[in-house]
């Protein structure tokens, strides 16, 4: 294995926020990985697109809201951020409903980019 070549590491997020901790703890991992100078990307697929939905307010739950935190991904070194087009459509959402700037991709594009990774981490 070549030591110097950065690894392609992709976070494949598929879970909804709030109902379980996976989306939040997944985000904590993504923010740490940015410091390691690898090729980091994140994709939001299935229910994970709901993590990016505008207008979330958790004050009545008494939990910490974190949808705004997804907006730091770019500055934390997560170079590519993809959202699955079909997952959005299934949930009646469009790009305008999201809190972050992302690249909306179809299954074919996703298939290709996922196939190029060295590591795929599910959250």
């Amino acid at each position, binding site marked *: 294995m070549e030591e110097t070549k950065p690894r392609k590491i992709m976070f494949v997020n598929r879970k909804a926020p709030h109902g379980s901790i996976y989306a939040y703890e997944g985000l904590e991992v993504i923010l740490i990985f*940015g410091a390691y100078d690898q090729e980091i990307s994140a994709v939001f697929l299935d229910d994970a697109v709901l993590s990016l939905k505008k207008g979330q307010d958790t004050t009545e739950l008494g939990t910490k*809201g974190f949808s705004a935190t997804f907006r730091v991904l770019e500055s934390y070194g997560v170079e590519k951020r993809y959202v699955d087009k079909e997952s959005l459509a299934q949930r009646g959402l469009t790009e305008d409903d999201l809190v972050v700037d992302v690249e909306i991709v179809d299954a074919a594009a996703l298939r290709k980019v996922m196939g190029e990774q060295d590591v795929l981490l599910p959250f």
Partner: protein
Amino acid sequence: MSSLDVSGKTIELDEDGFLKNMDDWDKEVALALAKTENVDMTEAHWEVVNFLRDYYQEYKIAPMIRILTKAIGKAFGKEKGNTKYLYELYPAGPAKQACKIAGLPKPTGCV
């Protein structure tokens, strides 16, 4: 240390001296917290503290030091956008000291 008296009010702190309740923060509390860290608050110190509070307000996290230096440089000029500058202001570490004075939660600091 478990509490701080600020103009007659008792402010609760955690075992590391961070605010237990973020809503307790105001300028006076910040000055009292700075005193516990032996930091004399100058305008330059406030610049960082206010920046941290704004960042937290917007993104709900305290920025990592690497991100903080970059962002400070962008906001207040290149000569301030480095770790050395921030450590001169906050010798025990900007993540720990500046976040504490800014009333933010203790950084988990996993790296």
